């Protein structure tokens, strides 16, 4: 029994569905590559952006604190990277490509930012909280411009990509926290963390406290809420199951053929 569960856990850690970013990279680069529908730690994913795009976007991100997520930042980034104003034609989605670049690169950077030592006694919840907080802190430099980015993300044509990226982040955090559950909670965990993260990020755009302590507290409360709801639902299910079984037994003791 233990070997079975162990192997399934190892499998889950080793293979994950390939996220959006990997696909986009394949499309953009247009170099024929081996296609996998899962993520494997043994085969590193290709870079999500082709070299030319990456150079312009990484230069443009440096311009964001000053100019916001805007055409202006993109154009200045292109110039900083030695390209021309017209080179922003490289980004068919315009400013949203810049927003998406920030989200994808920060998500992928998460695994290098947070390390849990082998013998750590932290629970799953504490790990998730640490990871979510680390991802939020990656927004620190541009948080005063993030409302503009949220505006672009809420445009109809960008909503699917934005939600996909939120889902990918939620998945990344649970994966890095070492969650190996394969039951239905796989979905509820990702769903609830995505909701918590999105609301905390929105809160963070109006957070003036020093070192974002208010955001950290907000995140803590939201995670506790989510856990509380999860715990209540779980307890309620157990309680109902117990009484259902009891009722059946009671009915049988009266001679009903159930």
């Amino acid at each position, binding site marked *: 029994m233990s070997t079975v569960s162990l192997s399934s856990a190892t499998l889950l850690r080793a*293979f994950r*569905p*390939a*996220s*959006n970013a*990997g*696909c986009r990279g*394949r*499309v*953009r680069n*247009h170099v024929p590559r081996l*296609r996998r*529908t*899962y993520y494997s730690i043994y085969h590193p994913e290709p870079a999500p952006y*082709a070299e*030319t*795009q990456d150079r312009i976007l990484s230069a443009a991100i440096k311009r964001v604190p000053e100019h916001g997520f805007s055409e202006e930042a993109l154009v200045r980034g*292109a110039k900083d990277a*030695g*390209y*021309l*104003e*017209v*080179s922003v*034609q*490289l*980004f*068919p*989605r315009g400013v949203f490509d810049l927003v998406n670049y920030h989200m994808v690169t920060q998500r992928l950077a998460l695994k290098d930012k947070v390390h849990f030592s082998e013998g750590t006694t932290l629970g799953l919840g504490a790990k998730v909280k640490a990871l979510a907080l680390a991802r939020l802190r990656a927004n620190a430099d541009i948080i005063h411009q993030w409302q503009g980015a949220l505006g672009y993300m809420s445009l109809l044509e960008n909503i699917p990509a934005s939600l*996909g990226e939120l889902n990918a982040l939620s998945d990344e955090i649970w994966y890095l926290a070492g969650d190996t559950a394969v039951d239905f909670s796989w979905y509820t965990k990702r769903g609830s963390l995505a909701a918590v993260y999105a609301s905390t990020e929105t809160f963070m755009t109006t957070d003036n406290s020093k070192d974002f302590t208010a955001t950290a507290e907000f995140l803590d409360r939201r995670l506790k809420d989510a856990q509380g709801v999860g715990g209540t639902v779980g307890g309620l299910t157990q309680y109902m199951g117990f009484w259902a079984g009891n009722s059946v037994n009671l009915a049988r003791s009266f001679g009903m053929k159930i």
Partner: protein
Amino acid sequence: MLRSLVWRPLALRHCKGATKTAQKAFTTSTLRPQQLPGEDEQTTHFGFSTVPAAQKEAKVGAVFSSVASSYDTMNDLMSLGIHRLWKDYFVRSLNPGSRNSEKGWNILDVAGGTGDIAFGMLDHATNVNLDLKTKVTIADINPDMLAEGRRRALETPYGNSKRLSFMQANAESMPSIESNSLDLYTVAFGIRNFTNKDAAIREAFRVLKPGGVFACLEFSHVDSALFNAVYKRWSFGAIPLIGQLVTGDRDSYQYLVESIERFPTQEEFKAMIEDAGFVTPGAGYENLTGGIASIHRGIKPI
């Protein structure tokens, strides 16, 4: 086992490129051979007929000389008038003109005889980006089309200004234009008629500055089979007939619809642009009105 069953469709749905390729494998037919039987290096296609490469230029020249004055009528017929929207969108998406640099853009509009695109870009630069320095050069191989463009330019504010100039040139070789000198190279509804498209794209690569953009608006191939059937009926049945009735010149219009049919598909043309050394953004092309026309872009890497 369960994992692979569950995840394959999900992952595919996220991944636009993969689905497209998968669909293509089922829908692409060999309907459009790029080389007809009996066609070799020295010959090329002129509509559906095979002609010696040396003659294509003259034949295309004859077509456009004969339609120069009724060029807009022709485009309206071929695209049901939508070409005006496409050209508007093409110009707007390129966003020509610079808000805050001393030098404007240096733009070359190839096969732009009648000047639609050139005037549109100058208007956009002036009115949207408040840029009075961006320059456009209109190049066309056909003196009749250029004369039409010069005549129309006089009706715009750019008629006698230094921002607009004309030159007669073959897009496959433009020695009068320095290498690495242009910000933007556009060709709208022209490249289909070039004898050697690869040479023209290579020449575009040469004259563009590193980082410069090659942008091409052209009739292309409809992606839906049902719509395609209707569209083909229209283009092969009605357009030559209307051409004959309106301008009394059936052959020129027959050539135009045939040349659209012979033009490479979106994927093939994208590959040609990449072969010349350009980087293509996103999917590499953008379909307009279900693929009746498409915009291809390429950026010259540094």
